């Protein structure tokens, strides 16, 4: 990695020129730094994302209130189930992360609490100077989750005054 000086008695300075390699490294570094900061929505590994044709890139995650919608636990993979059990209370249907990154799970009887959470997040974003139109519900629904759970989350968001919904997907293969 460091440059070597190989000098013999009668040899001219035989240094290896490292500058092009360093330039390439810097370029790669800048590329990855820029790419890494683009994706800022919290990704919960317990959710198996659905795929969709004609979806677009999420260019700006600012203003996204992320709500994870879980499937039944018997449909989760063992690895996903382990992470779900570690992060959320039993029987949680919806999962969110607060401003400090702590995960919170809401059960079917806690729709009012979910509405309050969305409302609080909305107020936080508004306090940061974001317009109403830019505050969106980012719904990360598991592909096997029943629609009832997703629609309840949308209803909670509507009750909290958030009417723009973003469905999180993966590109279709």
């Amino acid at each position, binding site marked *: *990695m*460091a*440059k070597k000086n190989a000098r013999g008695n009668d040899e001219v300075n035989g240094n290896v020129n*490292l*500058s092009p390699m*360093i*330039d390439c*490294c*810097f370029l*790669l*570094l800048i590329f*990855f*730094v820029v*790419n*890494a900061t*683009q*994706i800022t*929505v919290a*990704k919960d590994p317990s959710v198996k*994302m*659905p*795929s*969709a*044709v*004609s*979806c*677009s*890139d*999420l260019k700006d995650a600012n203003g996204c209130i992320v709500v994870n*919608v879980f*499937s039944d636990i018997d449909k989760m993979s063992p690895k996903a189930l382990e992470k779900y059990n570690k992060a959320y209370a039993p029987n949680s249907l919806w999962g969110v992360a607060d401003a400090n990154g702590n995960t919170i799970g809401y059960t079917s009887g806690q729709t009012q609490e979910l509405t309050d959470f969305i409302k609080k997040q909305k107020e936080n974003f508004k306090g940061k100077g974001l317009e109403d139109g830019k505050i*969106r519900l*980012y719904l*990360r*629904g*598991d*592909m*096997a*989750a*029943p*629609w*009832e*759970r*997703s*629609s309840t989350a*949308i*209803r909670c968001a*509507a009750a909290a005054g958030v*009417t*723009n*919904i*973003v*469905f*999180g*997907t*993966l*590109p*279709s*293969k």
Partner: protein
Amino acid sequence: MARHKQIKTEDQEDPEMNISSMIDCCFLLLIYFLVATSLVSEKKLDISIPASTQSSSSQKPPVDPGRIVLRADGSATWNGDLTVADVYNPDAQPGTSEYRSQRELDQLVEQLKNYKDLATSVQAEPVVMLTGAPSAPHQRIVDIMAALAEAGIKSVGISTADPEAN
């Protein structure tokens, strides 16, 4: 940035700056970002729910909203009778023709495009009402949302009534 300067005087040796530690740091950072950056990034589908306050006037809209009904088995109908999506098969493997036809709801996209043209011709905003069975899989909803996005319809009303209750 990376090129080092060589200042030479007659009786001096090369006063070289040791940049190996900086290169080491760069490599460490590069490896960190290589590992931390996920290559498959999530995508999105946007919709907006028509606000209930908009319907304050009793005037009938120029075009009736389109209606999509999704049943528990994943099949869907357009405006009551036309079947636009077959029964959902969660075991369809990616890359197969069955998987492709499950994701690309061509018939629904065609109907939605026709409906959008009709609404645009009378200067009305195309609005679609989606009624889904509570147990319908989320993947099927996303398929329908993708069809709506492909047709360019962004305003979607979501009904919570069970289409199979009666």
